[in-house]
């Protein structure tokens, strides 16, 4: 087991280098010209300006030299400076990561809680209307284009009804809480500012719902299935025969066992959440890594594209590892080798 973990961790830098190489190759070997992002289209013919920009951003060197430099800087932890924000990419990412984490965690919590709840209800009322309804809800959630769902909710709950706040993490006039974790919900609580806390929760509601909906679907179907299995198991039948109340049978015996596979799914949801976050952040003007990635891709901001890709890769590899480990811990039959 320990050897397995070590090997998985040891191979990570190699995979990351692979990612770097691939993204580098893809972005550099194409006909697009990032200079327009740097100097603006009006100066493209201005020799002095263009040459200075090329020199400054290292674009005057050959691609292999650029690659070598990038990797060398990377080993020192330097992700380079963004063409667009003129800040170090590392700082840009750390500025924006909490926003994305807060959103995805909220979505995950929403997805798990509502998914487990729906799953239990569906299992208890198997083949009843609520079971069918939850199945439909799950399916629609996983088939729904997240950006469209976001627009729809904004139109109804913000524009028409005015029940929920619009895009952004807080109202424009609000003062952002002092940064400790970067999570507005947590930071405002730490500052004892209940109004800001409530405002940030209200701003989270729609994007987290849109993002978590897909998870709700998976989790509810999983919970339902495993709960049905557990309820059909011998020990449950025994417990029932002993006259233990159905409620206690479900809550005390079947559910804990049924939840194990459900919990592991949380890790798997990561890819789903990342994909969703890119789109949901765009729709809800959420200043996170997802919208940063979109801006970087559109303006061909090389260092930023590389940074986002690396961050995504690391997060992805780590969650995969964690999920595999959790699986192994829960199910001793799985041998990691």
């Amino acid at each position, binding site marked *: 087991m320990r050897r397995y973990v070590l090997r998985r961790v040891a191979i990570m830098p190699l995979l990351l280098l692979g990612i770097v190489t691939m993204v580098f190759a893809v972005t550099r070997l194409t*006909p*697009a010209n990032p200079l327009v992002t740097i*100097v603006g289209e009006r100066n493209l*013919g201005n020799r002095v300006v263009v040459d200075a920009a090329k020199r400054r951003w290292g674009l005057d060197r050959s691609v292999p030299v650029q690659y070598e430099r990038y990797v060398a800087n990377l080993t020192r932890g330097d992700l380079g400076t963004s063409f667009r924000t*003129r800040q170090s990419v590392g700082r840009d990412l750390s500025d924006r990561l909490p926003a994305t984490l807060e959103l995805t965690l909220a979505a995950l919590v929403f997805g798990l809680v509502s998914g487990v709840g729906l799953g239990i209800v569906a299992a208890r009322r198997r083949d009843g209307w*609520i079971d069918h309804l939850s199945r439909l809800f799950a399916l629609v959630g996983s088939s729904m284009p997240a950006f469209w769902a976001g627009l729809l909710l904004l139109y109804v709950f913000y524009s028409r009804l005015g029940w929920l706040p619009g895009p952004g993490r807080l*109202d424009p006039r609000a003062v952002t809480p002092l940064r400790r974790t970067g999570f507005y919900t947590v930071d405002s609580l730490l500052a004892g500012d209940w109004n800001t806390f409530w405002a940030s929760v209200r701003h989270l509601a729609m994007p987290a719902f849109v993002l978590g909906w897909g998870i709700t679907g998976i989790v509810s179907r999983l919970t339902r299935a495993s709960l049905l299995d557990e309820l059909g198991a011998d020990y449950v039948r025994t417990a029932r025969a002993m006259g233990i109340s159905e409620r206690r049978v479900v809550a005390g015996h079947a559910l804990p066992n049924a939840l194990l596979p459900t919990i592991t799914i949380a890790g798997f949801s990561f890819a789903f959440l990342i994909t969703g976050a890119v789109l949901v952040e765009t729709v809800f003007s959420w200043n996170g890594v997802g919208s940063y990635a979109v801006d970087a891709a559109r303006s061909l901001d090389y260092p930023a594209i590389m940074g986002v890709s690396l961050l995504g890769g690391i997060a992805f590899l780590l969650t995969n590892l964690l999920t595999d480990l959790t699986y192994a811990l829960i199910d001793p039959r799985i041998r990691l080798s």
Partner: protein
Amino acid sequence: MRAGRARSVRILSGIVAAGLLAAACGGGKSGSSGNNVSAQQALIIARSMDINSLDPQRAYCDTCQIYLTAVYETLLGLDPKDNKTLVPRLATKWSSNSAQTEFTFTLNPKAKFADGKPVTSADVKFSWERLKGLAGSASYLASGIASIATPDARTVVATMTQPNSAFLAQVNASYMGVVEQSVAEAKGATTAAATDKAEKWFLANSAGSGPFTLASYKSGQEVRLKRNAAYWGTKAAFPEVVMKQTADAVTQRQQLEQGAVDIAMQLSTDVAKNMNAKNVTVRKVPSFNYVYLALSPGVKGGEALTPDVRKAIRLALDYKGLLDVTVGGAGRSQPSPIPNGFLGTDGLAPPARDVAQAKRLLAQAGVTKLSLSATYPTLNVYGVDFSTAMQKVQTDLKAVGIELKLNPVEISVWASKIGTDGIPVTALYFAPDHTDPSQYVQYFGLMPGSQWQTWTKAPARPQENQLLNQAFAAKSVNERGALYKQLAQAMMDDGVIIPLVNPDLYLAARSDIKGMHYSACCNLDLSQLSRG
């Protein structure tokens, strides 16, 4: 028993269904405190920001103009009443020699930076030399300066490499603002691109003499300005001004309606229409920005674009229809590449559609089946969506028998293509940096080596260069006006640049906001604004 189970189930499903969403909905109307904002509260501007730097000698963008005007001061200002007359700012007096090669400015002795130190001629020299030396995007404004002399702390003498009657207007451009040399140098600023290291510092700090200072900047989120308490002139009314990143016009409108923000300047006609006008004032003002079509006869695929064909294309376009589909009619047609309202544009005939004449010209030229490829950037600037505009152009050209194939691309791809092979038909936009028409001639004229002469590969027209040099050396405004009118006419005759739409600008604000003006040099002057 069953009832108990049902209840537990119901409770759970209640938690689930109600959950986050319903709980958060419970709070009633979304928080907007617009109606009881006190006069001393911060001014909030909703804006889709394009900031590429906050370093006064590197920045180059529309939002940068607003920021730089608020934080750094130029020697000359622009009278908000006519957008033409130069007025004193850091300089009290200015003059030029008769050859228009030497400009002398006298600084206001009262002028001082936010830290209390006086603004000296050395600061001006440093700032302009740094602008030129860093070779940033706005450096062309200072590239004509040969040397700067500072005979004393209050006098600046700038010598040009050649006559430049536009220099005073250029000095008025927000990018020519003055930075405090001692502070900037302490943070690594120099006047050479290779050694300067101050750009990152400027993202979090400022060193200017303007009515505001930079409090904080979060890219992609907000620019927060603080009133300069030690400002040497009339202090700003607002203690704090915040520009909030608000990407789309719809959100800008909604936040303005709710009072969540005070100003929104990027509303499109469709969005501004049917606006809930309670407590909101929307004004439509002419702008100097425009979107144009460019025809490149010298590039591959553009061989058919002879002068007659270009003229036919110009006649084939339905200018009024273009205005309608792009900006809902809120704008103007513009005859020459020098926009309406600039020197030399009085009396130019607005472009008109004449399909019959266009067809005749094409027939005379022997053009029967013409197919052109239009590669253009997918931009949406000043409310004009390029794809919308180009689809209208496509429709109009079809009516005279020219087939236009549209190939919309991201601007980085566009830049690469136009810089190498060139593009037969394309579209782009222009917004002025200052009030002198020379910037248009230098960019659009077919003078040898100008940007569009290079891109279109059209035969160079040295006579335009001669006219411009005459204008640069001209002594009186009337003389310059006459020359620029000739130039405007010459560029219209060139027929490579065809302005499509000159959109109006919507200035939308809460009704209690006073002092909103659109400025040709500086976009929006924050120090003029007040509440009450």
